[in-house]
């Protein structure tokens, strides 16, 4: 009897021991979390299935192959209202990527200019840059997009009274009309030359990096750009490429390359907004370079501009690039505000029109989110790669 009691006591002791054993507790806690998550997931799936059945909504991805039946105002890939939903998705995606890539380029240029102006010895320039940053940063982007679209671009004159811009371009309430490059035949040749020139530029880049044990100077990119540009120009001249300038037709400008006001508003709004944040990042980066570096550059007899280009900026880039990546991602994600001004981006086309027509909210929104996640991931990887390349070896 004593033995049995002892055993029971022992058993109880091990049970208590287990309850206080950190390993067991950790395991139990995680198992509990997993259970809760699985329960939530099952519950959500069950409810969704029941709701969808009640509302007679199909599920699955078959809808992607069906005919879309609506028009899209700006298409980079061939598309008509007879195309499929899948094609509409690609139209939206390409429009998102277009505005994101151009927006990033513009925001970077403007942001760096403003950030450098913030540190300018010229009192007016630095104050003006500060005023820009403080005004633009503290007003919601959505409002700025509405201002650009409704109050600025839609308030422009009708085509008959369009503003003539230098270089044969026109700006009116229907958008921006640019001259268009016309190559009668031999478009393939132009593409081939561009490709070869790019390879040449990349080769030059690698050779220079291999020779000089120093980070690539961003300004040299211009020099390498010439390697691409010159052969292309030569071929275009040889092919007698012509510029088709926009001509005022009966109602609209024709012949030229017309850019929709929705796209313009989104591009201007996104890049001016993001530029304010980039300017602050650039300023912080420039401030982050030790003062001795400036003094050393001055002691070497470099002018302020030379010091900035050869000494300060290359070092500041190391501080600037990680938060800059964040701003690029923000710009890409913010391009989804296109839906508010009717630019046919991914969200507007797919999560808007396609969702309303098919009712398949779960599939549509999951696809949209997955695309943004993929873009975020890809940009992060690309910028990390660039960061590693420009980073200096730690001593």
């Amino acid at each position, binding site marked *: 009897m004593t033995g049995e009691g002892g055993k029971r006591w022992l058993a109880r002791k091990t049970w208590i021991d287990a309850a206080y054993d950190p390993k067991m507790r950790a395991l139990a806690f*995680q198992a509990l979390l997993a259970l809760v998550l699985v329960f939530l997931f099952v519950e959500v799936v069950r409810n969704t299935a029941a709701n969808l059945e009640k509302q007679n909504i199909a599920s699955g991805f078959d809808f992607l192959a069906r005919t879309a039946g609506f028009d899209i105002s700006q298409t980079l890939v061939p598309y008509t209202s007879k195309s499929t939903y899948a094609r509409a998705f690609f139209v939206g995606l390409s429009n998102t990527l277009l505005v994101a890539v151009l927006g990033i380029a513009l925001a970077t240029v403007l942001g760096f200019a403003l950030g450098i102006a913030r540190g300018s*010895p010229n009192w007016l320039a630095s104050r*003006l840059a500060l005023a820009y940053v403080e005004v633009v940063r503290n*007003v919601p982007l*959505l409002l700025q997009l*509405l201002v650009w679209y409704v*109050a600025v671009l839609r308030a422009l004159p009708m085509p008959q009274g369009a503003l003539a811009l230098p270089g044969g371009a026109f700006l009116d309430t229907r958008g921006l009309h640019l001259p268009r490059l016309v190559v009668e035949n031999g478009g393939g040749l132009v593409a081939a030359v561009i490709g070869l020139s790019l390879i040449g530029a990349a080769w030059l880049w690698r050779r220079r990096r291999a020779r000089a044990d120093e980070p690539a100077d961003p300004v040299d990119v211009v020099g390498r750009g010439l390697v691409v540009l010159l052969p292309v120009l030569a071929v275009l001249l040889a092919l007698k490429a012509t510029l088709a300038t926009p001509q005022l037709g009966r109602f609209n400008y024709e012949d030229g390359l017309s850019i929709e006001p929705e796209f313009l508003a989104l591009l201007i709004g996104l890049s001016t907004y993001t530029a304010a944040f980039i300017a602050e990042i650039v300023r912080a980066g420039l401030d982050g370079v030790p003062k001795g570096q400036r003094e050393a550059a001055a002691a070497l007899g470099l*002018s302020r501009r030379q010091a900035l280009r050869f000494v300060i900026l290359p070092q500041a880039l190391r501080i600037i690039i990680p938060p800059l990546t964040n701003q690029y991602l923000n710009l890409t994600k913010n391009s989804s505000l296109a839906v508010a001004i009717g630019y046919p981006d991914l969200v507007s086309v797919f*999560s808007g029109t396609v969702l309303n027509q098919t009712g398949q909210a779960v599939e549509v929104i999951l696809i949209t989110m997955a695309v*943004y996640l993929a873009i975020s991931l890809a940009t992060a990887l690309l910028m990390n790669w660039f960061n590693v390349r420009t980073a200096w070896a730690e001593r």
Partner: protein
Amino acid sequence: MRISTAKSERSATPFETWGGKLRATLFPTLLQSVVSLVLMALIAHVAYAFIDWAFIRAVFTGSDGSACRVEGAGACWPFITHKMNLFLYGRYPEAELWRVHLTYGLALAGVVPLFVPGVPRKPAILAYVLLVFPLLAFILLSGGVLGLPLVRTDLWGGLLLTLVIATVGIAASFPLGILLALARRSELPFVRWTSTAYIELVRGVPLVTVLFMASVMLPLFLPPDVTIDKLLRALVGVALFSAAYLAEVVRGGLQAIPRGQYEAADALGLGYWRKMAFVILPQAIRLVIPGIVNSFIALFKDTSLVLIIGLFDLIGIVEQSVQADAKWSSPQTAATGYFFAAAVFWIFCFAMSRASAALETKLQVGARS
């Protein structure tokens, strides 16, 4: 290579006189002088254009948009004054507006003492702000109890809705954000993975898609007999979104706490939750208060996106009035309305960013002593 002498010249310039200062800051070299003059011309041009629009050519009186439709008219101010109540409170019943004002008063009574140095019993005030006030505000604004008439949430709008979404969003995301931050630094792998996946997932997608999800998918996720208020859906979306960003801010604070603090708490025999609640989190959160204010500013601006799922916050209601009210339509109505909304948002955001910067300096001074 040209040797610059600008620097030595500048430091030699006497700063005693205004003229000397002006010359040193604006006209040190020929190039700088040109830049300064161009910028001055730009400023003068913009300032004149604005004054001309906002005052000289502006319309100040009128009961509809007819005066603003005159050729060459500037800002259409009567549009703002006539619609002020709509912009500030949406369609909240006029007889019940005192409830909104009382709520604002209660909020200020809680928040202002928190930021004034030397006020005693701050923990009690914080408890009021975080626990008592939300309940009071909900009862006051929504009504339906204690003899207060019910005001349905679809009548809430304008600046009121902006403030409600931003405040509830940050208040609800705060505990969730702290939990996520703790989980992301947890030693339990499954907990850590779950939190990391959630945070990265949410931060990788735009708020618009999260709001779409909350608006369209959330009703599907719930049992078929449960209906969920449109405002509540938006709030859930905003809170879940903002929690991921707040978690990263708090994680920054957690990482900045020296190891010794963790070890000291362990040596005192504190368990995980006590260690976090009484030793680590109070220090970590203090460190990241500026970051939290910045997330709040971002959230405040982002509330405007609820327009996309059919709620009318300040921007939504201005946009609706601009687009849909034929009585007030004129070439300048849109510009005037947007200017008003921008000014309101700017004042709020700028004040908060100043407060955040001031706090940052104060906390840094505190940490050093």
